[in-house]
């Protein structure tokens, strides 16, 4: 989420903490609050975010492409441990083999399969 007031990129979980600090009616509320400037705004719908976000996660890569891991989302520790267990870390080179019905990728000569939720946590940049 990007704050339209101050331009900060923030995590929705952090936004919740900002809401809790600023407002007694924060639960069951559709607005989100920037943790930096406390500006309140509506949440962009998921399809809208996907439409304008640059293709950057492993799930967005077209099959058959080689890419390098740039970042891994670390907020969910269970998911993070699974990703680490497969040897996926920043700088790792990944070849995306296929995307349907399951996402299959190759690191070195090992192949792994993950579901879309996990693949979305792996951010990549394509190799030229």
């Amino acid at each position, binding site marked *: 989420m990007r704050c339209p007031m101050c331009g900060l990129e923030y995590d929705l979980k952090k936004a919740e903490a900002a809401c809790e600090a600023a407002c007694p009616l924060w639960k069951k509320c559709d607005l989100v609050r920037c943790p930096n400037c406390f500006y309140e705004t509506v949440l962009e719908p998921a399809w809208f975010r996907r439409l304008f976000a640059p293709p950057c996660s492993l799930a967005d890569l077209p099959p058959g492409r080689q890419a390098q891991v740039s970042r891994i989302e670390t907020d969910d520790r269970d998911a*993070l441990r699974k990703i680490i267990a497969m040897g996926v*870390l920043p700088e790792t080179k990944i070849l995306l083999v296929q995307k*349907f*019905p399951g996402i299959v990728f190759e690191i070195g000569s090992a192949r792994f399969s*993950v579901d879309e939720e*996990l693949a979305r946590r792996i951010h990549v940049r394509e190799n030229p």
Partner: protein
Amino acid sequence: MRFDSALGSAEGLLKGEYGAPRRFIASLLIQEDPEITDLVRRQEPGNLAEIEKIIRELKNHSEGPVEYQQAIRRRGQAARIAAGAVLPNRVDENFGHRFDFILMNPLSGGLVLALILYFGIYQFVGVLGAGVAVDFLEDTVFGKILNPRMVGFFAKTVPWAPLRDLFTGEYGVLTLGLRYAVSLILPIVTFFFLVFSVIEDTGYLPRLAMLLDRIFKRIGLSGRAVIPMVLGFGCATMATLVTRTLPTRRERLIATLLLSLAVPCSAQLGVILAILAGRPKAMMVWAGVVGFVFLAVGSLAARILPGQKPSFYMELPPLRLPQLGNVLIKTYSRVRWYFLEVLPLFLLVSVLIWAGQLTGLFDRVIGALRAPVAWIGLPSEAAKVFLFGFFRRDYGAAGLYDLEKAGALDGRQLVVACVALTLFLPCVAQFLINIKERGWKTGIAISLFILCFAFGTAVLVNAGLTGLGVSL
């Protein structure tokens, strides 16, 4: 390097004995491993508080969780070591990858799965195992050779009729218990585990898990659950033990419920395939109803049960040609486990039925079961089958097989009976394992649900088929 100093001071604070190097324990503590934290809390709560202070300090200064930082550092070390020691030698994996493509593509992968099911399960286990091998053992070995001799031997040596019946009567330990176990269950289970071992050794199962992950997500499971589910077609009791490989309680519960309800074990499956073999329409109705129940109950459970959604990740090992020796050893040990598990129960059931008959209890229970059995449109002889089915469901299916051979049932009744038996209460062994693995409350709740649900489904199927006037 901040990590190293934190690790050093945490190690220095630890005083207990853990059967492992303190540095290792300290490292897991810093990674906030819940089990190790509990362990240390029990032994030295004071020191743990100190260590937690160090961990908080470390967390304030590092970006991202500690295990993430550690993994990155470890990878750097490993890469340095490997660079000086390993020469890359890329093997040509084209053939394997092309084959892999066929297995993992949704279209050809589905076709391969259908071929495996048709030839591996239907033709090999159903026709060859449950048909040819069972017929040979049933009719020739037991029917012509063993049974007449045993009956003759006991007729000569045992003068007291009830005792004679215990061994060689209609439900005798030898003529029924031993015969069912050896001539019906043994060949079917052996054939199934043979196929399963071959499939397992090729590395096909992780690919199947990948293929089915999306469907399994709908029923609250991940692709990982494919392995216990497929194994459930061998023996649901064994498969329930294998649900331990599933990561969350919720997944284990859903898998156990589905295994108990809608996954027929190989003995049951073999017998049902044999019974319905000549009636393709009946078999389709049976498979349709059971498949629908599997998906419907699964997706309902996924909606109702609280907890985290499953997530799927799995290594796809390279495809390998299975080695005959490994396959045989695996099959042997599984069949042995199964047979040793089954045989005493079969013999015990024979004794119980004998005792029940002698005291008249058996007749009374069958009498009581007659009414519900009539509601699902079955003749009263089928009550016996359901009573058997309570002790072991394959035992019940075997009884149904006898009934079908005698020509007592028409197509509709066969379908209803097969559906009811497939869904019906798990066998005693599985009931006990459910309680052991899931706790007695959940175990009994699962059984009660299945009892009502199986009966309800059978009533509906019977009413539906009768109402539509379908003849099968």
